[in-house]
Each structure stands twice: as structure tokens, then as C-alpha cells.
């Protein structure tokens, strides 16, 4: 039976739609700003009022990936004609790409930082979610002595602001030689995400009826087999949701990355703002770096969106 809606309900509905639109615009505005700046010519990036209509350029991305230097004089027509398209766009901006003695293009620091971010965020996410899933299963299914205290202790590791432990952590890391190493940040992010992962996964595990495993146990499987064949597929939604949260935390982490790394294992978040300081800030390049940096999380979240939607409402709906 269709519910009859009163005019006040329709009015409320309209207000809600407008409110959602406003909030969406507020949330999307910075992303639009980053994306548009990443494709702007340098001279239009900082105009007041902002330039909205412009011919998009690829040059910020070329500059992002290459080492450049200022040119005293413009390139000769021969030089310009011989250069590939991506070098010409740099020439157009009054800069040139630095090459080594053999004429090889010198990369900027960005690609390696981006790769570091990927390695560290993915590895720590896999570890945190993996260990969290096992731990949560244990807490959910077995009688653990002092379960409530242990779970509280696990959560309490998140109660301290990370900055408070940053300096002691730095000193400890330096003492054991873990500073500026991939493994160091991976351990740090895994530890940081683990408490979150355990708590979130415990909620999901509690939702999976234990009869499923019991059925598998009676059907001739060991508990381990039952875990992998029955519990894990059932927990996929929770694992996906937890993985997204852990990945976003590790991917976006700034403070520890800034303190613990400087070159070899530096991730993108501390690297991008460091470019502001070198010479005149080229905001288009910074925007391009930020824009690319947003993509993995967006892609990851998009791929897991179906799981995520169920994951968010998991437990809220009685089956």
C-alpha cells in the first residue's frame, strides 16, 4: 500500500534534498579546486577572482614527474623543434627538463614518494586487516580470559594523540635503525591501525552466526578450514570496509611520515608540501601531485563500494 504523503512531508523532503546538495557541494569544492588547478596554466592558478574557464594543460603533470631548472634564455627554434611534446610544454613555462650527461631525463622526487606511499599503505593495510581479522575471530568465538580488559587495552592505544608519542618513537626508531625505512613506517601504521581493525572486525565477526562454522565442523572440516572456507567469505564485507578505513589512514598519514622519514622511505604526504618551499611555489604542480595522490583511495573505495555500502549498514539491520 502506497503511503499517502502530506504536503508538509513533501516540503520536508525538498528541504532535505537542498541540504544534501549544499553539503555535497561543500565537500566536493576542495576536490574540484585541486582537480582544476592541476590542469591550469601556471599564470591562471592564483588569479583573483579564480579563473573558471581555461584551456586545460598537461604541463603540471610533466613538471610533477621531472626535475626542472629555470632557463636564462628561451630555447632556440631548433632545440624547440627537436624536443618531444612533453618537453615543449615545460619550455613554454620558461623552464627546461634537467638531463644527465647521457641525455637521460631526470625524474623528480614524486614518483618514488608515490611508490613508497603505495608500498607502505598496502602492506600495512594487509597486515593490520589480516591480524585484526584473526584476533577479532578469537575474541568473538572463544572464551578469552579478561576479554573486556584486553579489548579495552587494544583500543586504549588509540587514545593518545599520535604527536605525543612521535618524538619517543623517533628516538627509538633511530636507535634500532628503523627511521627512514619502509619497514619502520609499515610497523607503525600496522600497529596504529590494528586496534581499529580488531574492533571493527569483532563487530563483523559477532554478526556471523557461529552455527555456520559449527555446521562446517560437523561436516568434517577442521576449525581452520571452517575459518577459511566459511568465516572469511562471510566476513568479506567487513574486511573490505575495514581495509578501506585502514588504507585511508595509512595513505593520508602525515605527522609520523614527516618525522620518521626524509628521503628513502618518504611518503607522498610530507613530500608534496615540501615542494612549496623550493623556489617560487608552482601551485599547479602541487595540485597535480595532490590530485594524483587522491586517485588510489578513490579507486580503492570505488572498487569496494558494494561491500562498503553493506559494511556501513552491517549490524544495523536484522536479517
Amino acid at each position, binding site marked *: 500500500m502506497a503511503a499517502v504523503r502530506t504536503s508538509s512531508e513533501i516540503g520536508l523532503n525538498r528541504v532535505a534534498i537542498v541540504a544534501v546538495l549544499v553539503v555535497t557541494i561543500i565537500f566536493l569544492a576542495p576536490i574540484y579546486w585541486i582537480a582544476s588547478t592541476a590542469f591550469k596554466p601556471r599564470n591562471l592558478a592564483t588569479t583573483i577572482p579564480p579563473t573558471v574557464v581555461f584551456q586545460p594543460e598537461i604541463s603540471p603533470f610533466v613538471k610533477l614527474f621531472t626535475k626542472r631548472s629555470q632557463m636564462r634564455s628561451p630555447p632556440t627554434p631548433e632545440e624547440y623543434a627537436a624536443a618531444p611534446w612533453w618537453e615543449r610544454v615545460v619550455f613554454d613555462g620558461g623552464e627546461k627538463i634537467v638531463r644527465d650527461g647521457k641525455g637521460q631525463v631526470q625524474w623528480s622526487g614524486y614518483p618514488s614518494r608515490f611508490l613508497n606511499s603505495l608500498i607502505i599503505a598496502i602492506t600495512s593495510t594487509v597486515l593490520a586487516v589480516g591480524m585484526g581479522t584473526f584476533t577479532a575471530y578469537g575474541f568473538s568465538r572463544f572464551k578469552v580470559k579478561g576479554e573486556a580488559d584486553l579489548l579495552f587495552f587494544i583500543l586504549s592505544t588509540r587514545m593518545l594523540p599520535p604527536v605525543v608519542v612521535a618524538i619517543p618513537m623517533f628516538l627509538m626508531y633511530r636507535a634500532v635503525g628503523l627511521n627512514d625505512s619502509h619497514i619502520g613506517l609499515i610497523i607503525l601504521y600496522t600497529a596504529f591501525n590494528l586496534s581499529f581493525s580488531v574492533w571493527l572486525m569483532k563487530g563483523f565477526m559477532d554478526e556471523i552466526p557461529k552455527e555456520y562454522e559449527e555446521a562446517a565442523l*560437523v561436516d568434517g572440516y577442521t576449525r581452520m578450514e571452517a575459518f577459511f572456507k566459511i568465516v572469511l*567469505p*562471510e566476513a568479506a564485507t567487513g574486511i573490505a570496509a575495514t581495509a578501506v578505513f585502514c588504507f585511508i589512514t595509512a595513505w593520508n598519514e602525515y605527522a609520523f611520515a614527516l618525522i620518521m622519514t626524509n628521503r628513502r622511505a618518504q611518503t607522498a604526504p610530507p613530500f608534496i608540501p615540501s615542494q612549496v618551499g623550493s623556489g617560487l611555489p608552482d601551485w599547479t604542480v602541487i595540485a597535480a601531485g595532490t590530485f594524483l595522490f587522491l586517485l588510489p583511495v578513490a579507486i580503492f573505495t570505488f572498487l569496494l563500494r558494494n561491500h562498503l555500502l553493506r559494511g556501513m549498514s552491517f549490524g544495523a539491520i536484522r536479517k
Partner: protein
Amino acid sequence: MTQIELRGVQKFFGAVQVIKDLNLKISDNEFIVLLGQSGCGKTTTLRAIAGLETIDEGDILIDGKPIQHLKAADRDIAMVFQSFSLYPHMSVYENIAFPLRATRKSKAEIEQEVRSVAKTLQISELLDKKPSALSGGDMQRVAIGRALVRRPKAMLMDEPIGALDAKLREEMRAEIKRLHIKQGSTTIYVTHDQIEAMSLADRIVIMHEGVLQQVGSPDEVYSRPANLFVAQFVGSPVMNVADAAVAETASSVSVMVGGAAAGFEFPRALLSKLNGHAGGQLALGIRPEGVLIRRDAADGFLPVETQIVEPLGSFDIVDLKVGSKMLRARTKSGFVSGPGEKVFARIDPAQAHFFDTASGKSLGVRL
């Protein structure tokens, strides 16, 4: 050939003893129903046999071999859960094939066995569906199929139709019975529904607070309850139980109920059968169909007044005031027009039970 035996089984949950010294022998092909209220230990007993609970003392034997230390997987027992527990991420086919995949069977063998079980249960056309697309009855059939496919030594069923609606429950009850007759595997079935127990069981095991109360065929537990608990738990409407006093009259024995002045007439043989209990704490138990009523006075009938009449379709249940006690009688529908009617009642001595109120035990009186 599968015999299951429980010997002196004890189980504690912390300080609470949920199974108290349980002894039970189940013979091959027998359909045993564990019946009792929730919390009586019946499900724990079933889970202990399945290997999902450990026991604190005693032995569980299958074909004479103790199995209480074996893992569930090694006991070769199948179980059907109340929630069906069909794996949601697998198709019906995969669900049924799942127990076979734990064995070293070839793909072709597995396929053949799954299809054969599906045919028996008439679910062949459902094999490609996911459990979420099935009706309650079909989920039930798949769950039974998953249990049957391995040809286990024994089938355990934990309130398998408790989650279904009344009509479907009746259908499935018949189907489970048909299947058991056809497949003939030793089955232990847990329920709190005495109608289910009566209709399915070869023998019913009645449990209360962890203690086995009575084991017997449906007819035995109905017509010869071992104690007050069984008497009042089995049968619907519930058996009338009232404190009774026995007095000898000139020609017979009179049994006064609920402190009434006049008693119901019983044969003299009652006295010797009560065997000295006549003066003690005595309770009379009589099922509603054992309370006979008529409109006109007759020998041995006491005048009583009707109180509430519950028409139940094929018969009526009439409350009769006897002394301070209410006796419920079963009558033809419409026999009593309403409350306040004067009728005459007597108790059929052949259907009467006598219990020792102190111990609750039946005195085993048969007249």
C-alpha cells in the same frame, strides 16, 4: 548400524550443571526425540554428541567406542540446525556438496551423490539458487540434504522446523518422518514441541533441568507418565493435577479433590494399589478426556458447575469447579452451552494417575 550410548554424562557451564548424570541407549535406526523446555539441557546434550560441546564426565559411545575425545569432524555425524545454517555465499549445490568436499571423493562422485540426494528431497531444480532465494521449507530441505549426503552414522536435528510457520511445520514433520522411514538412519531430534515429539519419535526422552525424566514410546509417556513433570508437560490440553484425599466407603473408595466434601468413586482395588500411600501426600492426575460429564445425575457422578468453555473446533474444553479446584474436561463441541451450567462429572478410574506429591513420582496405579 549405529548405536549411540550416553553413560553418566555430566556437563557444567561454570557452576551451573546443565546435564546431570545422563544415561541413554539409542539403538540402530531409532528416531529419538529429546523433549523439554528451553534450558533443560536437551540442546547441550545434542551438541555434546555432535562434538560441539565438551562433556565434563561420562562417556559418549558410538557403536561401543567412546568418542567424547574426538573432534566433531571425526565423529561422522551430521547435524541440522534450527537456523538451517546454509552457507549464504554458496549455491544450494555447493552447500550440499560441502561435506563431500571434506572427503577424498572425485568430482563426478560428488555430483552424482548431490543430485541423488536432491532428487530424494525434490529440490533438484533449486541446485543453482542461493540460499537467500529459498523459502523456509526449501532451506530446510537443503539443510537436511546437506546432512544426508555424507550418509553419516547418525543424524542430529536441533529444532529443525522450529523456525517455520505452523502449516509448513506440519508438512515438514510428515516429510521428516517419511524420510526417516525411507533412509532409516539413527536420528536424535531436539524439540520443545510435544506434538512434534509425539508424531515423530520411536522413543521420547523427556528432560527437565538437566535430568532425564522419562524415556519411552509416545504412548508410554502419554499414558504412563513417570512423574508430575512429564504428566503436565506431555499432552495438550494439560493434564489436571489436584491434591487428593482417599476415603473408604461401604462399597467403594472415594477420592476427594480440591478439598471438596464429596469424592469421586473409585474401585476398591485402588486402596491396595496405592500400597500405603493412601494416607500420605497424594495427587490425582487426570487428562481432560478422562473427566466424563453428563447432563443428568447418575451413579458415581458428582454435580458440578461449569465455568469457562473453550471451543477448540473438534472438541470443547470445559472448566469444572470441584471444591477449590478447577478440573478441565474435554467434551463434544457444543455439549455445554456456557458458564454456570449444572452438569454431572466423574473420573474414569482407568485414566487416572496417582502421584506422590513429595517426590513427584507416579505411584504406577493402573485401574
